[in-house]
């Protein structure tokens, strides 16, 4: 049995948790992070790797802007750019209705200070001459990019450790509770490996598992664990610079300079209890077909690996981010619903700001856990 004291306890060692730890240490705050597996290995490490604002919900754009500052500073902050590259992003339309939706959203995004350009099919092909006949046009955002998800979480964890954060991997939280003025977090089931951590502030960055923590304090998001289905091919001559998405989100595709196509779409079987997020072969085949429909040359490539992981997907596909409504000192940052990779470095910066100053200029109201109060009362046990 071990007893630890700190200022801030972070549960969850994804990019959100590790970035929070690093940013807190930069502000001189003592921090202990508890991660059930390895840092950055769940949703943070197995996602598509898009770093974009194009097509993103308006409620997330201020976070995305903050995050972009962190992405740009990574070589200095982490000693690695994590293969972040500004390649541009195309959100593609496959119907006239898609084009209308893209144009409407581009207009709504206009006040947020980054350029999104609508491209007709001809304009698209003039610049990117590799799309198949199903693609009718796109919203083009030149300032978007992509990065290597496998590197980011571990890089934040190393930097946070080097800055003095205590990061405990393979430390599964069994209990969280208030203990007087402080929070008590208990790890481990048996006495021998029992660890008690006490701190003034608690950050719930437990991703797909976060509702269990929220529920301990009498609030919940309406959220399910889904497992996104990813595919990578053998290297192919590099031609596809921008990352690609589509209206509706059933497929996404990019190519890295090494030549591999990385694409995905759909979801498989995800049971949090078993800890196993599996790949469903029919989803792999479906993604191959959808990817080929976007770019016919993908048909010449060869799949070498498929994978999946856990994503916490909320009812409205928006994250849960902001102070608890039941418990002072508790901050939630989870449920990024399959598009948190780009945001998470910035989320850590904002959480650190919140935890030390009690305020941030990033508007978080619409992302509050309170928006689920009615639904979660009707669907207990989520």
């Amino acid at each position, binding site marked *: 049995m071990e007893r630890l004291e700190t200022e801030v306890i972070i549960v969850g060692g994804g990019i959100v948790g590790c970035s929070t730890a690093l940013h807190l240490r930069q502000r001189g705050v003592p921090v202990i992070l508890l991660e059930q597996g390895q840092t950055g290995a769940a949703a943070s490490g197995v996602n598509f790797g898009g770093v974009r604002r194009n097509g993103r919900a308006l409620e997330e754009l201020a976070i995305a802007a903050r995050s972009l500052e962190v992405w740009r500073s990574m070589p200095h902050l982490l000693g690695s750019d994590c293969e972040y590259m500004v390649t541009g992003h195309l959100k593609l339309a496959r119907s006239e209705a898609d084009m209308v939706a893209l144009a409407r959203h581009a207009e709504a995004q206009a006040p947020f200070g980054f350029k999104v350009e609508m491209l007709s099919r001809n304009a698209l092909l003039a610049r990117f001459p590799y799309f198949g006949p199903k693609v009718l046009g796109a919203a083009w955002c030149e300032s978007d990019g992509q990065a290597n998800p*496998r590197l980011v979480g571990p890089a934040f964890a190393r930097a946070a450790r080097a800055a003095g954060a205590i990061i405990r991997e393979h430390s599964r939280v069994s209990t969280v509770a208030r203990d007087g003025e402080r929070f008590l977090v208990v790890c481990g089931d048996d006495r021998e490996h029992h660890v008690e951590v006490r701190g003034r502030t608690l950050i719930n960055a437990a991703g797909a598992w976060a509702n269990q923590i929220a529920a301990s304090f009498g609030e919940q998001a309406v959220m399910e664990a889904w497992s996104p289905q990813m595919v990578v091919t*053998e290297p192919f001559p590099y031609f596809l610079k921008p990352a690609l998405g589509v209206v509706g989100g059933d497929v996404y595709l990019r190519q890295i300079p090494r030549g591999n196509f990385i694409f995905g779409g759909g979801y498989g079987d995800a049971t949090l209890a078993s800890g196993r997020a599996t790949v469903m072969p029919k989803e792999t085949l479906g993604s191959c077909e959808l990817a080929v429909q976007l770019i016919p040359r993908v048909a010449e490539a060869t799949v*070498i690996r498929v994978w999946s992981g856990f994503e916490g997907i909320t009812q409205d596909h928006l994250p849960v981010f902001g102070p608890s409504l039941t418990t002072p000192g508790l901050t939630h940052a989870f449920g990024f619903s399959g598009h948190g990779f780009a945001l998470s470095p910035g989320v850590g910066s904002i959480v650190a700001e919140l935890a030390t100053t009690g305020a941030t200029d990033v508007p978080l109201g619409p992302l509050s856990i309170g928006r689920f109060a009615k639904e979660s009362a009707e669907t207990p046990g989520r």
Partner: protein
Amino acid sequence: MTEGGSLRVLIVGAGPAGVRAAETLLKHGVKPTVVDEAPRHGGQIYRQQPDGFKRPPRTLYGFEAHKATRLHQAFDSLKERIDYRPNTLVWNLWRNVAHVAGPKGTDEIPFDALVLATGAMDRIIPLPGWTLPGVYSLAGSQVALKYQGCAIGQKVVFCGTGPLLYLVAYQYKHAGAEVVAVCDTARLSHAAYLMPGLLAGGSTIFKGMWYAAWLKLHGVKVLNGVTPLRFEGTDRVNALRLITGRGGEKTLACDAVGHGYTLKPETQLADLAGVNFGFDTMTRLWLPAIDEYGRSTVEGVYLAGDGASIAGADAAELRGELAALALLKDHGMAVPNARMVALMRKLGRLSRFREALDRLFPVPATDVHAINDEVVVCRCEAITAGEIRHAAHELDAGEVNRVKALTRAGMGRCQARLCGANIAELVAHARAVPLEAVGRLRGQAPIKPLPIALTRKADALWALNRPDEPWSG
């Protein structure tokens, strides 16, 4: 309990284990489906030459010609009565459905029980220069000869360890290639001490001794207790540099090398099936956990032959039959218990032989600890030993999947089938922990590369019901 006719059994692999499993099932009224990657049945050891090639079995299989012929005939006589799919890869498993890719594209095969007879592949230890043109794996050298009728070069050195080394050298020499030398890392000095175990394999050990003697008689240098240092050459290998058993350095000029350190089981499908693995201290590999009949830890999944653990072709035939009998018994069918007992007895003898053989030809798996930082370990992604050590030390990666994630080692075309064990050795050594403490690379589909052109099917999208995601991608 189950009517034989309705029981759906899928056998993966048509080598010695798969063929005998199929034969046994059919004998009991169960018509299995047999899926095999090769164009013709026989597996690796009894691989058949392409149509139109006319070399006699004795040329192809040596002492084992009668066994090869028997196995081929056994399968020829039953293949019309079962669902046999050559040239077909099981690329993934999803619950009780195998997903296959073959000449007609992708398909699904539902099953009630699965027999994995997936065979073995070369075990390689990287040395400077091992990715040079002209350096082949040992079993790959054998396939070139046995299947295509080609030699890997005109002046060939074979190095590594294991009985296969002598057999392949013999086959090359016999086929007319110049074999410069056989360089075995094993000293063979305790052969006499191991003799009781070696004799448990019947005449096999004498055949091995005969090959070695024949090679010497025909002017092939046979060096034991060597330490290979590097493959030399710029555009192509032109020499093997090694330390001899006596301690002196030696350069053997050649234009091709076949190297390999015994075999390792092809366990990826067992992994995808969810079978538990255990660490084997003798081979320093993670192997699927099976009982003495071949039952895995997953109900309905059976393993047979070298795909479970290396025991050789004779054992594979017996294990294929035994696993099939266990499968039938588990499904409530009457099986001859006396036959099962007899099979177990024979297998017991062969396992004593195998143990002695493993001791006679120990795999110098830890030799990889000493390789220079510049040596490429993961050939597909061109990741060096230095990069792996850097991840293990500086990037604090103490687990092989984490090392893979940070370096790309094991992420390429072969999906770590070739380099996985060496990556684990390097990480364990860099961190001064036992090999089993650095974990095991997770198996991921596809088992072998899957051409997207094969997967294209008009109805692939038909079954998809993807949720609409307003903010994704």
